[in-house]
């Protein structure tokens, strides 16, 4: 006791660190905490940190997965941007998909959410059915749509014919192939809807009541209350949907295999084909890694830009959490 009392305050603080009111048994808490998050930390290291470093290194090498990677500097990137005839079309296809899919998914998702946020008999059924395609396995729904879009015996053309509307060869046409893929993706719009629905339900009803008292029309209620109040979720959705759309793989892989021509050969499919294709070609893992990094940089840029300009159009009430 006497020894502790005469010890300088520094030493005592070291024993029981005063940061943010750590409890007295901080030591045992720390040990327990690290035991509890150990799996997650190992996972973070192995599945996040290691791949980041390793894939960047691989992008600078010539590597077939069998012999050791050979360092070639930025040669893969040079080849991508100047030599490879398939790269720019794949970048264009990816961009086209994002530009077509993201705004439609957000608009339709929000419209559906607003519809399902009303009170009327049967609204729960609509909500459930709209979300249903999201829970179904991607392979199952995509193949179902592959058959639906069959030009001769598919349901889509059959219905269009019955309604005397123009039909299309859908996946077989290089102009309609990407819109078809987006159509199939939009069938899963219930995922977007459910997030927007939660956001809409979090908007305080007093705001709507006040607007009603002031005699605001439905358009101004939407643009001045609904949209600003859900703008943080909108921002999150823009980021999530865009990054997901940039990594679209299942639909083009199953529906079109990238064709016709290069019309649906999105970057992810190109990466898969270069890195893992079992079409008898030698895998080009270094080259595919370079493509991964192009995609990665695009994704980071999209996130950064969206976040940077978010203050322009998202609403924040500036209350600290």
């Amino acid at each position: 006791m006497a020894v502790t009392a005469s010890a300088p305050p520094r030493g005592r603080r070291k024993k029981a660190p005063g940061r943010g009111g750590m409890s007295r048994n901080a030591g045992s808490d720390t040990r327990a905490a690290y035991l509890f998050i150990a799996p997650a930390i190992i996972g973070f290291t192995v599945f996040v940190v290691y791949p980041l470093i390793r894939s960047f290194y691989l992008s600078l090498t010539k590597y077939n997965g069998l012999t050791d990677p050979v360092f070639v500097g930025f040669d893969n990137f040079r080849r991508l941007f100047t030599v490879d005839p398939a790269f720019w079309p794949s970048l264009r296809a990816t961009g086209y998909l994002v530009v077509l899919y993201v705004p439609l998914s957000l608009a339709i998702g929000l419209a559906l959410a607003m519809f399902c946020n009303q009170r009327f008999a049967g609204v729960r059924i609509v909500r459930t059915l709209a979300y249903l395609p999201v829970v179904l396995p991607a392979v199952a729904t995509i193949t179902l749509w592959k058959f639906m879009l069959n030009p001769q015996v598919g349901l889509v053309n059959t219905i269009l014919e019955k309604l005397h509307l123009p039909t299309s060869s859908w996946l077989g046409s290089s102009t309609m192939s990407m819109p078809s893929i987006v159509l199939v993706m939009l069938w899963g719009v219930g995922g977007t809807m459910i997030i927007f629905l939660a956001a809409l339900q979090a908007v305080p009803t007093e705001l709507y009541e006040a607007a009603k008292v002031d005699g605001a029309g439905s358009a101004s209620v939407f643009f001045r209350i609904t949209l600003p109040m859900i703008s943080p979720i909108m921002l999150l959705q823009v980021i999530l949907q865009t990054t997901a759309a940039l990594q679209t793989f299942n639909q083009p892989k199953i529906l079109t295999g990238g064709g016709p021509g290069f019309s649906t050969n999105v970057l992810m499919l190109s990466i898969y084909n270069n890195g893992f294709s079992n079409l008898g070609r030698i895998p080009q893992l270094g080259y595919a890694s370079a493509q991964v990094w192009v995609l990665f940089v695009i994704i980071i840029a999209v996130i950064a830009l969206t976040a940077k300009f978010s203050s322009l159009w998202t609403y924040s009430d500036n209350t600290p959490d």
Partner: protein
Amino acid sequence: MTTLPTDAAEANALADSPDRAEANRRTPDSRPPRRRRPVRTASWYVTALFICSVMVVPLLWMITIGLKSRTAVFEVPPRLLPHEFNWSNFIDGPKAINFGQLLLNSTIITVLCVLGGVLTAMMAGYALARLRFPGRKLWFYLFVGSMLLPGVVGLIPLFQLYKSIGWYDTWLPLIVPAFLGGNPLFIFLARQYFLAIPYSIDEAAKIDGAGHFRIFTQVMLPLTRPAWITMAILAFQASWNDFLNPLVYLYSSEKWPLAVGMASFISAFAGQTPDWSYYMATNLLYMLPPLIIFFAAQRYFIQGLGSLGSTTQK
């Protein structure tokens, strides 16, 4: 706007809806009587009907195809209802792709992924929300930040890593990540749930002499049931539906899960017309487990995702 015939119109609209009983049950309670607007009500039901058909008709059509004979599938123009019902498709179709084996594979992989994913995420969430330790903010931000990291970055290095340690063409690359807190979204969800529980509860447990392990398993897990049920459902879905990972990591067809088996059903035999009636019958069986879970646990889907929405909004 409110005139006499409106009531009749709305009553009609309600009578047409399958939810009439529900509507009747709801109207009398505390809410003030609604103003009735017939045109609006009617257009709502038309819209609702349209949305429902867009979602349901493809599935009904799948069942129709699944019941048709192999040749009837290619009738032009297609018949919307099958001529005769080929129930045998539901037996012969699955046989054609060795469905039993694929189902078993999918089940084993999925069960382990759910177990590992939920357990390690709950553990991490517990530590991050309820224990004070140096670095807890840092780890939280790192985990949350990694949600934004595109999965594609890991594709090639991890493939190589697994190959070099002999895990290629085994289930380990699909399962082990789940046991290492593989889904940062789950860690985030778990932490949010744990934060909402009053701290006096652990203090009481501590006074009673419980250690962290006991508090976690006997106090916290029962209290956070909705959280981990939601996560388990999401983990089930993710694993059952995953296509890219098994496609990349599994070579032998006898180790495939259903997703890869089903995709190969229609694409492997290039040049040969796929047997659509067999396929659709089998596809329905593949969809059945997620469908059953969805309808059984609907509120958890909505609740879980709803809580995700509201917590990220704060």
